[in-house]
């Protein structure tokens, strides 16, 4: 099996996610972009798993999904409380910790 096409797709998704993280201000969008990057990685893992014919990659993909789920829980909670206090979901507004 030739994984090249899958990898192209994974790279494309990762790049979209990374540019989203860098460009967008809205915390929710940022969050979704991070998920996109994670899923790009998952795609690559699964593709390699298939190529090598063992299950290691798929197991790691599951791990990633678990981590992503936990991240969503914590991350959304932070965003919600941020929105409550500052009435904005923009990450640029939350720059109080700079020197």
């Amino acid at each position, binding site marked *: 099996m030739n994984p090249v096409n899958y990898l192209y797709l994974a790279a494309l998704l990762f790049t979209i996610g*990374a540019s989203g993280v*860098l460009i967008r201000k809205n915390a929710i969008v940022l969050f979704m972009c991070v998920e996109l990057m994670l899923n790009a990685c998952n795609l690559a893992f699964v593709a390699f798993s298939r190529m090598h014919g063992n299950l290691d990659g798929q197991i790691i993909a599951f791990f990633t999904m678990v981590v992503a789920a936990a991240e969503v829980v914590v991350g959304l909670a932070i965003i919600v409380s941020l929105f409550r206090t500052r009435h904005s979901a923009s*990450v*640029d507004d*939350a*720059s*109080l*910790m*700079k*020197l």
Partner: protein
Amino acid sequence: MENLIALLIAAPLLGAAVLLCGGRRLDKAGHWLGTLFAAASFGIGVALFTDMLGRAADDRTLSQKLYTWIPVEGFQADVAFQLDQLSMTFVLLISGVGTLIHVYSIGYMEHDERRRRFFGYLNLFLAAMLLLVLADNYLLLYVGWEGVGLASYLLIGFWQHKSSAATAAKKAFLVNRVGDMGLSIAIMLLFTTFGTFAFGPVFASVGNATEGKLTAIALMLLLAACGKSAQVPLQSWLGDAMEGPTPVSALIHAATMVTAGVYLIVRSAAVFNGAPDAQLVVTVVGAVTLLFGAIVGCAKDDIKKALAGSTMSQIGYMILAAGLGPIGYVFAIMHLVTHGFFKAGLFLGAGSVMHGMNDEVDMRKYGALRKFMPVTFVTFGLGYLAIIGFPGLSGFFSKDMIIEAAFAKGGTQGWILGGVTLLGAGITAFYMTRVMLLTFFGEKRWQPDAAGHEPHPHESPKSMTVPMVILAFGSVFAGAFFEIGERFLKWLEPVTGYEHGNSPVSAMAVTASTMVVLVVGVGIAWSMYGRRPVPVLAPRGSLLTRAARRDLFQDDFNHVVLVRGGEHLTRSLVYVDHSLVDGVVNGTAASVGGLSGRLRKLQNGYARSYAVSMFGGTAILIAATLLMRAV
């Protein structure tokens, strides 16, 4: 007997300790205690002297070693004393005149609330001066040398509430320190050359050292002597030192401490004998100071400063004689002793005059005092006759000998030196006559001071006049006593050595020409100050007079070159330290701070920019890894 030597020093030292630490309890008895300790020292001195007379001339040196002072590998300094004829002469002079001046001070300082302290300092001075002349090595001598400097500092500045006194004291100490530098370098030279600085071994082995080394040592010793004895170029402190109480001027700045330089040179005779060039420098210094002091003495209206100029000049005679070598050593010491008598007497007389005149020192405001102060007049007058060399009095003998020895130096040098000493004798006669006439003769010229107090000149109390009478007695007879049968020469010869100089001029001719310059000097003074009334305000005077009043611009030179220059130097160094040395450090700190401030700007608080740097970093890492693989 030799165990008594330490007691000579211990007595006044104990006195100083008791008086200075005793506190106010001793205020009532302090002056008596101080005098007692001084007299005890004199008593021990006399006992040692009679013992010494009882022994043969070549068996008169006593020595006493107390303990090893600084034992360091190769460096042995002992606290050890040596009493020979030369030291003995000084011991008697110091403790004798010292005791008299203690007695005098009882009256003179009567109204001073810090009299106890004054006597403590005087005792300290006696101890240090005796240590100086009794030490058997240069390092211990150095202790005494600085000790007298300290005592002099404390006593010049005794009236510390006067700024001028405090400044004068500081100046005296500092100028002396320059001389002390010479002494310490001389000791270092002695140590590296001989490995020791004890008198005995050094003098025994001078023959092994090169002439260059000896000359260097001798010149450094001369520098020390110049500082202590107020010789050109380190003479500037003596005039200011007259800020001290008059008994101090008499004891320290006339009779004893200032003659320590002469002692040092005569004591180091062996070194100087091996360094003819240095001896020549010594005579030149002596000759220059002799004239310098005499000229300054002519112009001063302050009676003590006039006498200070005279002291400088007379010590110039002694230094000159000491520079002549074995033909002059004995006469230098002889003049030193007679000078000790008459100059101390003159100063005490001046003090007595000031005591009666509300501490007025300007001679132009004296006049006709002979009627009011008969005892002072007679004793001062005898001192005056002695110093100008009136035939038969002590100055006549001792000064004549020096003039003769100066001619005997031989060649052109001899003529020049002889001429200078003769000229000096003439000027001496002039300025001393001037002092005499201004103070005791003519019309009375004193006026009420600003507060309206008119001075009531009166004779001083017994405690002051008795020492003056004793000193006057010494001024009259000491010279003749020393000279008859060449007693003094025979006494000192075993220590200093003696050669009879062959003078190109006969002794009679020297005496005759001395008499001529004496008469001329006295005559000029009389025509200027005796025949016509003296103005109370000093006239402007000739250029030379004005220069002499300002100590021939020596102080102005010091002020401009040393004081101003030094101030500029220290001020600019303070600036350098602050801006340059510290500036480099603070600059480094500031640049580190600036750099970190700039780096801080990278932390802008935007999560995105941190993410960019993360991505960028990762990209660079991956690229680098791939590149490494490829290569």
